[in-house]
C-alpha cells in the first residue's frame, strides 16, 4: 500500500517501474502491483535489480526482499549493493522470522527466540543490518514501520527521490509466526528520528542510533548523503541505456589488428 501510494506521489508511470522480489511472503508483491516485475530466486533480488538498472537507467528499479532473503541467503549482495551505490531501491520486509516456511529463526530474530528450528531458543545474537549498511558506505539508510503507513510512504518517496542506492528496513510484524515482535510491541517502542532533530548527514550519530534497541527503537532516515552512483564511473555511456545501441554497427576488425 505504502509503495503504491509512493509511486503515485512521485508521479511515475507504471511502465517505468520494475519491481524485483525474492522468495518469501513478500515475493507475492509482483502479483499484487501492476508494474513491470521480476520475481526472482531467494536472496538474489539485489544482483538481479543491479543488472536491470545498469542496463537501463531510465527504469526505476525497486527491490522487495524479506529479512531471511536479504540478510541470510543474500547477505553478500546487501553489503556490496550499499558499497556499489547503483541507483536502485531496497525495501526489506523485516518480520524477524521465516514465515513462508512456517516459522524459523532469521538473522534479525532476537537471541532466545523459540521457533521450530530453534526449539530451545536461538543461541546467537541478531545481526544489525542498519549498522552494516552504514559501515558498507550506504548512501541512504532508513527504517520504517508498517504500523505507520503515512510515515513509511514518506520514506519510500524519499528513497525513490534519492540518487543512489536507498535502503529501508521495514518492521512488518508477522501476525502468524512472530509472537514476540508484534504490532503492539513495536508501537510501544518506536520513535521517529526526525522528531529529535536528527542530522541525517552525521554518520557517527547514525551509527549510535543504529545500535539503539530495547525500550526505544528509532525509525526514519538514519543517514543520507548522495555520492557518485556506479554508472557515474562509466563516462563512455553518458547515462544512456545499453539497450538503444545498434548492434550491427559493431566491428572488431580493428581489435584483431592488435592480436596480429
Amino acid at each position: 500500500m505504502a509503495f503504491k501510494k509512493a509511486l503515485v506521489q512521485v508521479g511515475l508511470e507504471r511502465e517505468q517501474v520494475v519491481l524485483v522480489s525474492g522468495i518469501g511472503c513478500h515475493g507475492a508483491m509482483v502479483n499484487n502491483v501492476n508494474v513491470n516485475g521480476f520475481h526472482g530466486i531467494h536472496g538474489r533480488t539485489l544482483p538481479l535489480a543491479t543488472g536491470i538498472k545498469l542496463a537501463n537507467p531510465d527504469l526505476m528499479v525497486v527491490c522487495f526482499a524479506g529479512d531471511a532473503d536479504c540478510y541470510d541467503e543474500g547477505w553478500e549482495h546487501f553489503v556490496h549493493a550499499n558499497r556499489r551505490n547503483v541507483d536502485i531501491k531496497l525495501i526489506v520486509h523485516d518480520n524477524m522470522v521465516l514465515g513462508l516456511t512456517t516459522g524459523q529463526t532469521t538473522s534479525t530474530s532476537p537471541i532466545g527466540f523459540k521457533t521450530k528450528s530453534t526449539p530451545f531458543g536461538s543461541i546467537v545474537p541478531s545481526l544489525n543490518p542498519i549498522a552494516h549498511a552504514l559501515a558498507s558506505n550506504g548512501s541512504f539508510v532508513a527504517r520504517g514501520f508498517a504500523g505507520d503507513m503515512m510515515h513509511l510512504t514518506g520514506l519510500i518517496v524519499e528513497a525513490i527521490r534519492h540518487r543512489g542506492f536507498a535502503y529501508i528496513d521495514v518492521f512488518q510484524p508477522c501476525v502468524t509466526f512472530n509472537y514476540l515482535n508484534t504490532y503492539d510491541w513495536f508501537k510501544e517502542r518506536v520513535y521517529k528520528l526526525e522528531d529529535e532533530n536528527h542530522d541525517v548527514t552525521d554518520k557517527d550519530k547514525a551509527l549510535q542510533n543504529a545500535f539503539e534497541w530495547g525500550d526505544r527503537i528509532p525509525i526514519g532516515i538514519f543517514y543520507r548523503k548522495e555520492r557518485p552512483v556506479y554508472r557515474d564511473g562509466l563516462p563512455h555511456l553518458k547515462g544512456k541505456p545499453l539497450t538503444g545501441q545498434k548492434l550491427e554497427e559493431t566491428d572488431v576488425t580493428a581489435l584483431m589488428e592488435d592480436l596480429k
Partner: protein
Amino acid sequence: MRENKLSLIVGGEAGAGITRSGFLFAKACVRGGLYAFGVNDYQSRIRGGHNFYIVRIEDQEIYSQTDSIDLLLALNKETILIHKDELVPGGGIIYDGEEVTLDKAELGREDVKLFPVPLRRFVKELKAELIVTNTIALGAAVALLDYDFGSLEEVIRDTFKGDVADVNVKAATMGYDYAKQNYKGKLEFRLKKLSTAGKRKLLLTGNEAVGLGAIQTGCKFYAAYPMTPTTPLLHFMAANERKYGMIVMQTEGEIAAINMVVGASFTGVRAMTATSGGGFCLMSEGLGMAGMTENPIVIMLGQRSGPSTGLPTYSAQGDLRFLIHAAQGEFPRVVITPGDAEDCFYKTIEAFNLAEKYQIQAIILTDKNVLESHTTVDPLDTKRVGIDRGLLLTGEEYRSAEEYLRYRFTDNGVSPRVVPGTKGAIVRANSDEHNEDGYTTEKAELTSKMADKRFKKLDALIKDLENYETTKLYGPEEADVTILGWGSTKGPIREAMKLLNDEGLKINYLQIIYLNPFPAAVVKRVMKAAKKTVVVENNRTSQLSSLIREHTLMGVDHKVLKYDGRPFNPIDLSQKIRSVL
C-alpha cells in the same frame, strides 16, 4: 639441418615472465609468416614452482604441441632437470652457465648441446629488473636458430612501451650477439622468415576469440568473478569496455554475476558471464531461473581438472554431463563446444543468436587447453554470422492494441519479447510457475501447459539446428578408424591423424560441436558407416560415449581417455589409436 620445424620450451619459476617470453617468441615467428602453437603449463601460484611454455613452429598449419623438444630455454636449473629427457638428440639448452653448475652425471645426456649464456651478469650490466633474463635468453635462441632478429624486436616494441621496450630490446640484442659470437652454426635447427611475412595472421587464444565473438555480436553486459581459465576473458572484455559501449563488471561472486546477467537480459541487452566448474556450481540456480523466466543468456564454462578445486590451472573435460543437467527441473538449453580458437569466435556468435531466438540459455563449453593456448589463425570473418535477435520487439514494433503477455502461447513456444519501459506493456518475469501474463500459478493444467510451451522451443531449435554445423567430419567418408571427440581434443586428434595418414592409414574424425541438443542423426550415420570407432576424451568416465549411447543406442568400440590435466600429445595419441586396429 632441419628448417622451420621446431619445438621450444621456456621454463622457470612462476613470476619469471615465462608465458610472456614464450608468447613473444611465437609472435615473432608468426610475423615471419610461420605458424605457431603455444601452450602454457603453470602451477596455481604467483612465485616459485615450475612453469613452462611450449612453442611449436612450422611452415604449415599446426593444431597442438608435440611430444618432444628441440630447444630448451632454462631460466633455472630445475627446468633442465625436469625437461632434459624430452629433448631430441642434437637438441640444445640455453641456460646461465655462471649461475648453474651442471655435471655430466646430473644431465645424463651426451647427445644434447649446451649453450651457456651469462644471463644474470647481463641483467646486472643492463641495470635492469631480473625479469628481463628471459628476453636475453630469447635473443640467444633467435641467434642459435638463425632467425630474423628484426621480427623479435618488432614484437617487443609492440608489446612493451617506452623504457621497458628499450631495455628488452637491449637485453635481446645482448643475448643475440653473445650466441652469434660463441655458438654460430652450432645448432642443427633453423627458422627462416617466409615471403608471407608481415602482420597478416593472428596469434589467438580461445579466451580472446570468445571475447571477439561476444563483442562482434553486440554483447553489452558482461559480469563475472575471476576464475582460471576464464579470467583472461574478463580482462579482455574489461579492456574493451569503453571502446565498445559495454558494462563489464567484476562482481562479488558467481551468483551475483549470473543474476546480474539475467537482469540485463530482461531489459533486452545481450549479456554474458564466464566461469569454471566451481563457479558454475554456484550459477546453477541462476541458470534455472533464466530457464524458467525464459531470459536469453550466454555462459562460457572453461573446464579445468576436478572434482572440487582439483588442478586449478590444468585442463579437463569432466563437466559435460553436469552442465547438460545442471539446475533443478527440466528446461531446454543449448551446449556448444568449440574445438579451437577459430571455432570459439563463430560459435560464440551462434550462441548469442540461438539464446535470443529461442529465449534459452546458451552455454559455450570450453577448457583450459582451448582458452589459454595460442594458435595461428587468419583474420576472422566478422560478416560470416549475422545477428539474429529473434522475436525482440522494439517500441514501434510492439502493438499496444493487444494486451502484452510475456509468456503468450504460440505455435513454436517462443513468445514475443518486449523490453520493460515500452509504453503500454507490462513485462512480468516469474521464477514461479506462471500464466501467460507472468502471474504466479499453481494450477495443474497450466503447469504442464507451460512446461510444454518451453519444450516446444526445443523442438523448434532442433529443427533449426539442421542449418547449423553441429558436427564436422575431417578425413575421408570411409576409413579404417573413425574418431569421435569434442572440444579441445580437436587439435591433438588432427595432429595424430596427420601422423597416421603418413603411415598409410585411413582415418576420419567427427568433431561433435553441439552436444545439447545432441546431433543424433549425424552421429548415428557416421557410427553406422564406421569400421571401428574410438572416442577420445579428457575425462575418466567417457561422458561422450554415454551420450552417444543415450541418443543413438549404439556403443563405441574403443575409448582413449586422458585425465591427468595435460593435453594429449599427438604421437602418444596416434599410437593409442593405432593399437585398436
